[in-house]
């Protein structure tokens, strides 16, 4: 495999304050150029924290971070000041869940896209505006020329999210980070935005990390999936591997409790208990207290990701994986 675009190694993030929380605990993953990684997990699993860490968006005074993040040849952890500003939006950019909050309500959508382009590139205002228009057309906003002068509140939710994507693409980033971009949208609009993201990714050849709690949405757009729990990646692999032959009991439980074709007269196979408290993670596997397969080893030692039989790139962090490990 060629050198990955993004490589994350042993990333740890802790938040301080009234309570200390270990939000990420040794997260490592790679993302190839032009690849879409779906990051799946429930609230508090660390999926959004991972994305924000990639842009260094956490307040430095209350966050301690360690580990390595490399995008292309850039060492992200070392970036400061002007270089960090250029990196954000230029190399990697983010689409947030709520475009209503991400846009400034006092400026038109066009002004905000133009501002972003001018901040990154030495081109004239007219050229920037022409690019903004081209972007709005590219994300399939009807009557793009008119919408360029619209304020965010004048647009519907789906249209705002399209404009948000246009803004994120303004400086042709190599890495697009999408944080639950379709969660706030209605079903018929959600599928439009998912298809748009897939299409843009193919056309522009970007790498994308798509964070979601909705397995269906992740399956629609991703090449690979990584499942997070308690600030760790517990399983990763191709979409088909993870969805059709899950190796981690948590992934299996999550898939089972996502009601798709459960017979109506049967109770749902629910995972007992609640997600872990990040301020007091258990010493071993974070899922052990809820896991039917848990043993003494699970409660004491944190399992590492290991390859599963059948596919070297299908890896799970479990002492009692549901599949045979490749090197038993």
């Amino acid at each position, binding site marked *: 495999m060629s050198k990955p675009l993004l490589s994350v190694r042993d990333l740890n993030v802790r938040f301080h304050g009234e309570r200390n929380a270990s939000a990420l605990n040794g997260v490592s993953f790679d993302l190839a150029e032009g690849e879409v990684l779906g990051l799946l997990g429930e609230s508090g699993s660390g999926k959004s924290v991972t994305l924000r860490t990639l842009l260094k968006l956490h307040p430095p005074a209350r966050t301690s971070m360690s580990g390595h993040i490399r995008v292309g040849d850039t060492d992200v952890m070392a970036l400061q000041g002007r270089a960090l500003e250029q990196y954000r939006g230029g190399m990697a950019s983010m689409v947030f869940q709520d475009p209503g909050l991400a846009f400034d309500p006092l400026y038109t959508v066009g002004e905000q896209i133009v501002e972003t382009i001018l901040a990154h590139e030495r081109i004239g205002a007219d050229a920037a505006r022409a690019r903004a228009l081209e972007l709005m057309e590219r994300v399939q906003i009807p009557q793009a020329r008119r919408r360029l002068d619209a304020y965010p509140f004048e647009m519907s939710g789906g249209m705002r999210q399209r404009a948000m994507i246009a803004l994120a693409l303004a400086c042709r980033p190599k890495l697009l980070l999408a944080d639950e971009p379709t969660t706030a949208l209605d079903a018929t609009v959600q599928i439009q935005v998912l298809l748009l993201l897939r299409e843009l990714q193919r056309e522009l050849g970007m790498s994308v990390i798509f964070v979601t709690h909705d397995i269906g949405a992740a399956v629609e757009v991703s090449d690979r999936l990584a499942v997070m729990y308690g600030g760790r990646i517990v399983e990763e692999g191709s979409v088909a591997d993870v969805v059709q032959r899950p190796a981690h009991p948590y992934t299996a439980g999550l898939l089972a*409790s996502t009601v798709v074709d459960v017979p109506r007269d049967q109770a*749902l*196979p629910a995972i007992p208990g609640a997600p872990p408290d990040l301020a007091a993670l258990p010493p071993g596997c974070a899922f052990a207290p809820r896991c039917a397969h848990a043993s003494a080893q699970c409660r004491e030692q944190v399992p590492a990701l290991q390859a599963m039989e059948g596919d070297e790139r299908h890896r799970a962090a479990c002492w009692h994986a549901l599949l045979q490990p490749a090197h038993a």
Partner: protein
Amino acid sequence: MSALEQSAVADRGGPAQPLLSVKGLQKHFPVRESGALPWVKKGPARKVHAVDGVDFAVAKGETLGIVGESGCGKSTTARLIARLIDADQGSLVFDGEGVAEFGGMALKDYRRNLQMVFQDSFASLNPRLTMEEAIAFGPRAHGLPAREASARARALLARVGLAPEQFGGRYAHELSGGQRQRVNIARALAFEPRLLILDEAVAALDKSVQAQVLNLLRELKEERGLTYLFISHDLHVVRYFSDRVMVMYLGQVVEIGPVEAIYGAARHPYTSALLSAVPSMDPANRTQRSPLAGDPPNPIDPPAGCRFRDRCVHARAVCAEQAPRMLPLDADGRHFARCHMNDLASGYASSAPAANPEAVQ
């Protein structure tokens, strides 16, 4: 036995009588046009057609799922039924008795028979009450002695899976989302209601916790003979949980029928589009084309004729000219849809195709 319990559980009309029938329910909200600033000239008075003539009935012991996108009026319908807001028009008949009308049932009795669980588990609990107090509050307000109300609250906490000695004294912020929603369910049950309105009650919960709460709701329904109105945007959950499904679009019911008929043989183009917009769980079989273009339209000034026609691939001239009727589609009269295509008398077959900029071909 207190008066509270006696009045609450009595079945009056027998099993064949619908528990609740809703007729001609209508609610229009006036839109204040730039009214916040006194010197700005006001535009013409406009109205949000939130709910526009909704009729349906819920049988005893049934779960009726209500689906639709934002702005379709599903939550307003729930609030109208719970009488949290007053309807412009329409009537409610609860087990054969008119609600809050002459000779019918008093509003207070009706509310005791009907409870609601909301989406936001935190906002629906008083932050200054302990969980035990929160559950006991309603029955006490309806005249149950404090000691009995507390005992009932503790029994209910235990029933929804929260140990009363551990959780009874806690405040809302000390519980997780799943636990708070269990408390909200316990509080709704404190009146021994017969009808429970679940308005996106599991939407905010994580999937693994959502399954637990759905299982709890199923058990409680069996145990207490409850009837549910289950409002949700998650079509998988609605399919699993409901006996019948009602699909709403822009303030109207466009299709209603048994869950198998809606999911297996939908007869309204909107229902079909909504169902095929659900992401596929099969990586080898991804969605290739969006079934609908554009956003749901604004419920202010909905289009004349069929309200879905602007986004409908099947729209013809007749769809703009006259509003379709709700028509029965099966022999036993359980499946209805509001579409000219099912109506031979509508002239749809001979009507010219409509030019439709937004519809995907």
